[in-house]
């Protein structure tokens, strides 16, 4: 029906899903490809669960249908499981090992999920698990975790790595260009093996 390559990026408001979307969109433009995307703005950003849809070579609507995403990028372990039903059979999942427990887990008396139970839930997707915080710190800033994950996933994304790196150079604040490019490369090096 559609030949677009559909990526769902999920995380927590403030983790930089929108920057990741902008990098992908900018890279599409530089390759002369169409792209559609949808984002969460407004109050939902205040520490809430957020999702960003990107359809590379998309000509129609911006939303990805559950069960059809080619790639799921998750900036938080718990969010990966929450959105895992979006992935198509055989789709690729790249997931940050970090997990921020939602405050609801403490105020609502439900037992908080453990890393082990979430990893067990994700097992059937054979996720590429990445310690993005560590790699981002090595690159110079833990704020660059989003770019680390993008780098790890770049082997699956049908865009040239050079296009993505150029987009990063164009979009991140000038004084963080080196950090972010290094974060992308560290992520990319890690992603080759998973």
């Amino acid at each position, binding site marked *: 029906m559609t030949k677009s390559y559909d990526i769902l990026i999920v995380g927590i*408001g403030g983790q930089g899903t929108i920057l990741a979307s902008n990098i992908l969109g900018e890279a599409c433009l530089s390759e002369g490809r169409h792209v559609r995307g949808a984002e*969460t703005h*407004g109050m939902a950003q*205040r520490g809430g669960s957020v999702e960003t849809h990107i359809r590379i070579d998309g000509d129609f609507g911006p939303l990805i249908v559950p*069960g059809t995403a080619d790639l799921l990028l998750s900036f938080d372990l718990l969010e990966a499981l929450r959105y895992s039903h979006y992935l198509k059979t055989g789709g690729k999942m790249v997931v940050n090992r970090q997990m921020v427990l939602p405050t*609801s887990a*403490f105020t609502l008396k439900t037992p908080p999920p453990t890393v082990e139970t979430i990893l067990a839930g994700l097992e059937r997707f054979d996720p590429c698990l990445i310690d993005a915080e560590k790699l981002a710190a090595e690159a110079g800033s833990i704020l660059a975790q989003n770019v680390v994950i993008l780098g790890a996933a770049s082997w699956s994304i049908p865009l040239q790595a050079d296009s993505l790196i150029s987009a990063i150079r164009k979009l991140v604040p000038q004084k963080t260009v080196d950090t972010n490019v290094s974060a992308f490369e560290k992520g990319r090096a890690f992603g080759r093996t998973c």
Partner: protein
Amino acid sequence: MERQYLLGNEAIAHACRESGVGFVSGYPGTPSSEVIDVLRIQKDPSFHIEWSVNEKVALENALAAAWCGVRAICTMKHVGLNVAADPLMTSAYTGVTGGLVIMSADDPFAHSSQNEQDTRCYAHFSRLPCLDPAGVQEAHDMVRTAFEISEEFSLPVLFRPTTRICHSKGDVGLGTPVPNTKKGEFHKDPRQYVVIPAHTRILHKKLNEKQPALKKRLVERGLNWFSLKGKIAIIASGIGVSYVQELLPPGVSFMKIGAYPIDEEWLGEFARKHEKILVIEELAPVVEEAVRQVAGCVPVFGKINGYALYEGELSPSSVAEIMTKAGFLEKNPFAPTEPVQNLPMRPPILCAGCHHRAAFYAMKKVFGESAIYPSDIGCYTLGIQLGAVDTTICMGASITVGSGIANSGEPRDVVCTIGDSTFLHTGIQGLMNAVYNGADMTVVILDNRITAMTGHQPNPNTGVTAAGVETPPVSLDAVCRSCGVTFVETVDPYDLTGMLRVLADAKARKGVKVIIAKQMCVIVARRAGVRRGMYAINPETCTGCGTCVRFGCPAIEIADKKARITELCSGCAVCVRVCPVGAISREAKK
């Protein structure tokens, strides 16, 4: 032609510049806010730009500028149009000289709104044209068309993108910005601009006479179009168009409605060429009702006969389901999926160090569970998670609902909360009314100096305009006193002791009491470089009682049965007072 990867609202803002807009006004509201936020950071703008205090004020300002021959745009969210409905209805009578585009962004699924109303109904009600884009590129292109149609028919034009367009992105082809060169010039014409009965009856007739030509022009301009393919047809509008186009089987006719009013003759001719018709649209069945009126005996499938839902937003899978159910697709191409169940929710939450949390905590401490807490629209509506929000209906309604409850004979204490921007939007009238009519209540103005929830837009309380020009900030204290309130106290909500004392004072008194809980929004403070240091919990003193985590700050979590403060801590120090055993203190400098 330049192409950029833009948010719908960024594309709309760019189109305003391509149209030579000379006057921009609006009130922030998700999903509309970024249009002005993009325009207000343009260097050397050739247009006047303002965040107005509310949507009625914004529209009246823009209307007057358009009367002076300048192209004007006024932006708001759908519920803002309710506030602006008074000038809207009569602006259709007076008309405009310069183009006036009224952007009212709808929010199907109420992602960040109190209802799911449909701006297209206002278009029908006011007899104004309405443009309804199906995607980001079209949203851009339609702004330019809207200005042209507005000037051709001397009518304001409603422009109605939805959340899925305002907050979608795409590669957008852009034109070249044209600086505004027009200076406003008001030509006196009482028969046009003074709507006394003798004038308005004539103006109403003129408005009605414009309709037939307007309907035809919307078709001629390609805003409404069809392609004939077979014996069955789908008619779609808004974002539904893109979902239908992705699924449309060969041999099915397709009609796109991008503008209202719809030419009934043209619609009827199309309808009667088919054996059955499906209508796909979000929110109210506006297109469907028009189709039903002209379809004769052709069966129509839509919301009215239960094939589609009135509520919520469309998605590719829901459209596939409707098409399959109504017999327009043989098989739904999307297999059903189930999300993983029983994961802890991650709703939006007040930030770590948000002073609203401290104010709510103090209010509940003094007034208790039984008091009634009307609230309003802003970040602080999230206080519902703390049990400190009992009502929210629309902007400014915390004080009015509070005085209504207090004057209904309800004996319990009424303590309402309202943000500074909302207070200036439509709260002042309610306060004046409460004093005038003898209500017994406490009003807490949660004053963070900014319109935070929609993205930190300045308001008259901030001391800076949309364009970044410094301006004398409004004194909330003086406003409240001039409304007749004698008990007005300003407190820093981080000072829990002071806050508790002032609230207790208010509780002991009769009449309307106002407490201004004033502290900079924690996000703005962080961006401005305010660093208060961090706090830590002594695990030896901590008993693991959980009082601090129930306070609800996202910087506090439980690990191994002891509370712990994470790096999210902004140093507000309110939890120091919340902890019953004194286990929290400032972290030693590393």
